């Protein structure tokens, strides 16, 4: 009899722990607080800086912790034809997104600015073509391509035929800034 009660209690505890742990993973965050887009200044294009460098505020993009937002970003990635130049992250006409190299910065707000403002030599500006919410979702997904998003929220499969390693199994690269490659510079 005593043993029975112990089994029941431990089973119940197990169930409760399982339920609590599972909650966040499956939560569909439709109403995630997005970063303030107004605070994001244009990315500095040159390396020279007058005076002391102001510390860049690091923006945490909450959409990276949200599976639904990342999958929406993934859909936008193909709907907005990002694959046309970046392929599925391997690059082509545009630079690859699955490696460690970032020309215009790897931080969420830098990726946001790159999408909104466009960049020289081919990257179009998406200002007024996507709402801020969509750009934050897209930026979250772009970072997940090189494994920057948590594994438990990054997409695990493609909507179409699986073209590459899913984002949640992607090796996490250590982002580093690089200059524009010589091949991308146009001769005037």
């Amino acid at each position, binding site marked *: 009899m005593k043993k029975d009660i112990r089994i029941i209690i431990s089973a119940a505890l197990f169930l409760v722990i399982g339920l609590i742990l599972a909650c966040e993973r499956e939560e*569909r965050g*439709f*109403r995630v607080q*997005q970063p303030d*887009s107004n605070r994001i200044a244009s990315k500095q294009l040159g390396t020279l800086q007058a005076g002391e460098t102001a510390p860049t505020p690091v923006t945490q993009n909450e959409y990276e912790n949200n599976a*639904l937002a990342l999958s929406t970003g993934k859909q936008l990635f193909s709907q907005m034809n990002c694959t046309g130049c970046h392929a599925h992250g391997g690059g082509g006409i545009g630079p690859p997104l699955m490696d460690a190299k970032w020309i215009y910065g790897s931080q969420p707000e830098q990726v946001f600015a790159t999408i909104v403002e466009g960049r020289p030599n081919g990257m179009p500006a998406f200002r*007024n*073509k*996507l*709402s*801020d*919410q*969509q750009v934050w979702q897209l930026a979250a997904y772009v970072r997940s391509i090189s494994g920057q998003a948590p594994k438990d929220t990054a997409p695990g499969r493609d909507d179409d035929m699986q073209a590459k390693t899913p984002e949640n199994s992607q090796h996490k690269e250590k982002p580093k800034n690089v200059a524009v490659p010589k091949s991308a510079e146009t001769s005037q």
Partner: protein
Amino acid sequence: MTQRSAKLTSLFLGAGLLFAACGGRQSAVNAAGIQAERLESLWWIFFWITAVVYVIVMIVLIIAWVKARRSSAQEQPDVPDPARHRRATTVVGGALAITVVTLFILMVTSFRAGGAINSLSEKPPDLSVKVTGHQWWWQIEYQDDVTPGNNVMTANELHVPVGRTVKIMLESDDVIHSLWMPNFHGKKDLIPIYPTTFYFNADKPGTYWGQCAEFCGYQHAKMRLVITAESPEDFQKWLDAGRQTPPIPTEAVQKHGEEIFTTSVCAQCHTIQGTGANGRVGPDLTHIASRPYIGAGAMQNTSDNLANWILDPQKIKPGIKMPQNQFSDEDLRALVTYLESLK
């Protein structure tokens, strides 16, 4: 509350629910078309026959229970009784025969109703409407086979002329949906890359509700359709109005609204005929101001609701494709004023 009054209340509540369903704008027992009438009479035949059967079975069950209680009181020796056995065989055989005959009658009436419902498709329809299901709204297209320029595209509202045969062609853009307009017809599924059709005929003018009847995702419940059955003259008037491009904005506020709409995020997904906005992801908004509801029946089409919808549709219908938008108060007011001019 005593137990008895609780029982009475629940009885009245249950009866109330039953009768409330009888007069509704979204009810299979308030037929507004010849096909729904067949379905309704079939429903009532089934209802009364099964009700009588239920009552008989319950009475027999109670009799058997009372008898068994009485006979168990007096010990009975377990001896075979041929007369009793014969009686029992007759009763069971008779009940079986009645059951088979009843089921057969139900089957024949059901076949006949099915045949009558499908008989409309034998003649060419007076009107063809293409209905495409999206997560979670209905795209309605009135097709003109002779002049494609006369096609009318709208969303979440179906206008039909009374007394005419309408052919509905169903397609789905994403998952399986099902169109159910209970006052007119049974359910019909919308299946991706497999077009389905049905024919129906509206007899009673009025407005009715249609609803997606196949679970299609998070906002399945808010995938509704307003059906307006009107006289052929009124219908033609509505259709002609739908073919026109909306009036060109005259006031400065409306002009500003149009500029925002056509040059910003809105135009990426929505179409307004006669402007540069020709997105095909969301509903056609050419005559949005003439529609009674927004968001596929999610809320009434008022200025406040429209403004709230534009700013944060994810609050009203979480999970839909339309994102949250950021507009200044002035821009938002201009946008709403412009949309409300699209009669």
